[in-house]
């Protein structure tokens, strides 16, 4: 059912709008899931897909708490729909359909829950292996990371976390502040974490692309989780293949009219040759599932 949310906080982090929305009836999301959102007073015909950036209903110590769920989104203003959302102010209403799609946990990238970690050998991370969790984000692709960090914290992933984020310039890199709380909580739980930043113009962190940093440091037993533009995802998958990394998951972006499997607008061609609806089989998909294994490596 479509829900109605109230904007509780609206602020800019660099060029991106950060919205915290109270959504009565919201069921709680996994990182990598998204919602179709639209300003209640909108001149757009369709809602737009946005990753759930953070979600306080998710906190597993309070199961079944549905009231006053506070869900946040990070909006890069690229056109009319995102522009309307970025212009929202406190107390404005938003229509929300979600949470939707397969997040990182459902796609098998992180173990489903902390207490089950040991009994969940199928999951990529949190099974006591040596590999690190490497999170790669590009631009507004940083959006789902706060919720992802909560999941990492609750799963007590001891093997260490490396966050690599790439931005156009120092202005976009201001969005890193949305990770502050999550990284601080990891520190308190003594989960080792490191952050590497790149900007294309060199105005902050390393000058270059996030894939350059990744290429320097990637280990074959790392697990890689990726959120960002399609071109970056494909470039990251190439680096993964080159380093023999098999466990990589990508949050894919396509145009979506409905977000729930009705319109067939969101399809992408996946490794098995078929066109698949990203809103249903994704948005998070394993690298081999999405891009295939036989890629040329240089």
């Amino acid at each position: 059912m479509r829900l109605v949310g109230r904007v509780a906080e609206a602020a800019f982090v660099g060029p991106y709008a950060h919205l915290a929305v109270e959504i009565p009836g919201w069921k709680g999301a996994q990182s990598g899931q998204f919602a179709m959102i639209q300003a209640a007073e909108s001149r757009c015909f369709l809602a737009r897909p946005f990753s759930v950036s953070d979600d306080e209903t998710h906190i597993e110590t309070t199961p079944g708490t549905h009231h006053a769920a506070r869900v946040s989104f990070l909006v890069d203003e690229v056109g009319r729909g995102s522009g309307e959302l970025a212009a929202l102010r406190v107390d404005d209403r938003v229509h929300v359909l979600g949470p939707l799609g397969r997040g990182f946990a459902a796609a098998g990238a992180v173990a489903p829950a902390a207490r089950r970690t040991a009994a969940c050998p199928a999951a990529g991370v949190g099974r006591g292996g040596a590999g690190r969790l490497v999170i790669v984000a590009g631009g507004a692709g940083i959006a789902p990371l706060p919720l992802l960090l909560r999941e990492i914290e609750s799963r007590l992933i001891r093997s260490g976390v490396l966050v690599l984020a790439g931005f156009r310039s120092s202005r976009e890199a201001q969005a890193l502040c949305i990770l502050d709380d999550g990284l601080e909580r990891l520190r308190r739980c003594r989960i080792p974490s490191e952050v590497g930043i790149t900007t294309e113009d060199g105005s902050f962190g390393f000058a270059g692309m996030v894939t350059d940093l990744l290429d320097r440091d990637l280990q074959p037993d790392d697990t890689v989780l990726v959120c960002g533009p399609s071109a970056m995802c494909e470039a990251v998958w190439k680096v993964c293949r080159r380093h023999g990394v098999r466990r990589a998951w990508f949050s894919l972006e396509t145009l979506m009219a409905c977000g729930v499997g009705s319109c067939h607008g969101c399809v992408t061609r996946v490794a098995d040759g078929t066109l698949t609806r990203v809103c249903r089989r994704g948005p998070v998909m394993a690298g081999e599932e999405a891009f295939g294994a036989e890629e040329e490596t240089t």
Partner: protein
Amino acid sequence: MSSRLHTHLGPMFLEYPVINASGTLDLLETADALGLDGDYRVPVAAYVPKTVTMLPREGNPTPRVAEVAAGMVNSIGLPNEGVKAFVADTLPRLLNLTCPLIVNVAGFSRDEYVSVVERVSRALADELGSDKGTWAPRVGIELNVSCPNVDSGCMSIGTDAEEIARLTQAVRDVWPTPLLLAVKLTPNVTDIASMALAAEEAGASAVSLVNTFKGLIVDRDTLKPYLGGITGGLSGPAIKPLALRCVFEVAAVVDIPIIGMGGIACTQDVVEFMACGASVVAVGAAGFVDPWLPARLAEELEEVLCERSLTLSELIGKIH
């Protein structure tokens, strides 16, 4: 819902006069996406799944959708699992829904339409028994002769009154009265009333109008066609006045019920379509924003009927 809204579409009883337009609501996927379990309340009075064709279809290249002022243009291209998988996997699940089912069928020749309907009939005989009379309240067929996003068949049939008549007759032979046979018409013709008449005379028990208007999106950067299928179909509030005109013209000449659609997004739209002569309305692309819109519009329609002191049958065709 209240008995004020109860109605019939040919042999089918509908709890209220609002259904979905084919290709704009995948009920099974949507329920799964929203995490609803088996006993959710279906948001339509009858369910129309996406068009089924003889062979599986992948559909058109991407991009497939673009938003425009007051609507969208799509070039989806009828992707579907094909009738074999449809009758084996999907049909039994759809027959478990609590509402009647209207199977939307397309083909690239008359024979193909007939074959698909025959395959569906055979599967129904297995599921519901061979007495077709007992199917009538539960299952109907809608012939899509109006998709603008495929190369042959379909819309080329729907733009030719004689072809519509021949096809309707051929399908009637394998899908006999009293079973519901609706013909879904394209508005991309000079005289839609003559198309509707051709369908009625050939034995259709309803006409659905309209499918999308053929349109084009220009890529703002390259100035080339934007959609993978080059052209697409325009739907949404942008087409409402055009669709209303179609319903108005068709209602003046046919006696069979009209399923009206094209840009319906609010209750006033429903009221206007019914006033122009639609007995039942279908929610299309506006349902993408809220899959539960059809049921919500029906509830609000009831309030409007109360306020205006009208019965449903007084509202239908009030303009004429």
